[in-house]
Structures are given as structure tokens and as C-alpha cells.
């Protein structure tokens, strides 16, 4: 049986730890100027973290126990194409979902 004291320790620890990670630079550096080289790297945070987070899930999906799935690859490719061409998040998500649903149904 699950230990409820442990659950609360984990909730509190993760809550505090997650806040600390989100606050560490924004809170502690504030408006002090960062060196240009650091700024140059920070400009590419979003376009680096998100693909790195997603790509392993695309190539080795959790739901197939890591086996590459052509349907999920296709859905990812269509989503990226629509997102890049139309620059519309909603259209891209719907297109990706449509590929998944159609593919599963066929």
C-alpha cells in the first residue's frame, strides 16, 4: 500500500524544487546584464529544448514500447510541415491528430 507521508514529501519536494528551477535565473539575476555570449546561447533555448524533448518520443514512442511506428513518424512530419508553413499552432496540431486518427482507422 502506498505511504501517504511519502506522497506528501514528494509533492512538497517537487513543488519547491520545480519552483526553484523556474526561479533560479529569473529571480537571482534579475536585471543585471548577461554577457553577450550567454545571451546569444539563450536565444536558442526554445528551439533546442523542445526538439530534444520530442524527438526520442517520435522515434521511440512509449506506447509501442519503443518500437518505431511509421504512423507516428508521419504525424510528426505533417505537424512540423504545417507548423512551419502556416505558422499556426492549432492547424498544425489538428493536422497531426488527423493523421494519427485516420491512420489508426484505416
Amino acid at each position, binding site marked *: 500500500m502506498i505511504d501517504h507521508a511519502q*506522497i506528501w514529501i514528494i509533492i512538497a519536494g517537487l513543488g519547491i524544487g520545480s519552483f526553484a528551477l523556474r526561479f533560479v535565473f529569473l529571480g537571482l539575476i534579475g536585471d543585471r546584464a548577461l554577457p553577450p555570449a550567454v545571451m546569444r546561447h539563450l536565444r536558442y533555448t526554445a528551439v533546442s529544448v523542445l526538439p530534444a524533448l520530442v524527438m526520442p518520443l517520435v522515434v521511440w514512442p512509449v506506447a509501442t514500447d519503443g518500437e518505431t511506428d511509421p504512423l507516428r513518424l508521419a504525424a510528426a512530419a505533417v505537424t512540423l510541415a504545417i507548423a512551419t508553413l502556416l505558422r499556426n499552432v492549432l492547424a498544425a496540431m489538428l493536422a497531426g491528430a488527423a493523421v494519427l486518427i485516420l491512420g489508426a482507422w484505416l
Partner: protein
Amino acid sequence: MTPGDVKSSYWRGVRGGLPFILVIVPFSTLFGVISVDAGLSVIEALSFSVAVIAGAAQFTAIQLLRDDAPTLVVLASALAVNLRMAMYSASLTPHLGKMPLWKRAVAAYLTIDQNYAISIIEYERNKAMTTAEKFAFFLGAITPLAPLWYVFTLVGALLGTAIPTDTGLDFAMPIAFIAMIGPALNTGAHRTAALAATIGSLIFAFLPWNLGLLVAAGLGMAAGAEVERRAGARA
């Protein structure tokens, strides 16, 4: 700066955040369901979502709890999944660092992948934005998302296993993230960063504790910065 500009920035943020409701609702519901299934009470599941607001870390923690992992392992693994938030924090600092401490604390608590990504894209596209407008946009983008994250965790926890969990939902998060990446690929430097991070994430996927993500992200940032530096040197 007029209050009207701040207000319109806020509403543009809200509009930017709206599409992600499609991802936030199923995921928070799923989190509620699996939490209760793992033995958490409804209050515990809800507190989890309010304290942490980070889907990937929350799912990691519940999975490890189910596997009877020691408390320290649960904390370390889930926080490792969230290390990217420190990178977001650094990346937001040039934009929001001028604000009073309490506003920076609010922004920190409310930082998730979705509002971070669309805010950064907006800040880069719209260089004339003031700090107040940037903060308003950021808050606008989280407005439709955080409350639903809490509410649907509660819904999932209350309905419990009445909701089927094997519905191909696993791929909703990747699709949402890819949809966010597309509009951000504005320059050759951005595209190079994304490509380097993509390749790096596959090469370093073997690293434990999600550290491959951090290595790959570091590679992407270095690649983007280098392309920008060379372009600057040529100009």
C-alpha cells in the same frame, strides 16, 4: 506604453494559449486517473498538479511511485525531467528580469513549456514590446491553461478508472510541442539549433535521468549561437 497596449498584449497571449487546451485537458485528466489508480487520494492528486504544474515530471513521479522507488529517487528523477525549466528561466531573464521580485516569482511559478515557447516567439518577433507588455502576454498565455490543469486533474481523480487510458494520447504532447517549434524556426541559426538538438537527443538518448535532453539542448544552443556569431562577423 499605455494600459491599452498592455491589455491587448494580454489578450494576444490568451489567444496564443487557447489551442493548447486540447493538450492540457486530456493530460491533466489522465494524470488524475493514474494518480488515483496508483493509490493517491483526490486531494493529493490535486495538490500535486497545483504544486508542480509540469506534466512530464508529474507522470515520471507517479510511475516511480508505482514501482516503489525510494523517495529520493522519485524526487531526483522528476526534477531532472524539469531541469529544462532552469533553461527557460535563464532565457526569460533578459525579457522579464526588470520586474519586481514578486512578479518574477509569479512568472517563475507559472512557467510551463507552452506559455514559455509562445512568449519567446512573440518577444523575438515583436522587439518593441515593453516589459509590462511582455509580462501581460506571458500571463495571458497561461490564463486558459493553468486553471484547466488543476480542474481536470480533479475531474480525472474523481472519475478515476471510468476513463479509458489507452487512447493513443501518448502522442498528443509530442504533436503539441512540434506545433510550437515550427513557428520558431525563423532564421538559419534557429533551424541549425533545432537540427543539432534533434540529432543530439537521439545520440544521447541512452543517458540516464533524462540527461540526454540537457546535453542535446546544450548542443543545439551552442550550434545556434555559433551560426549567429558567424553571420554577425560577416555582416
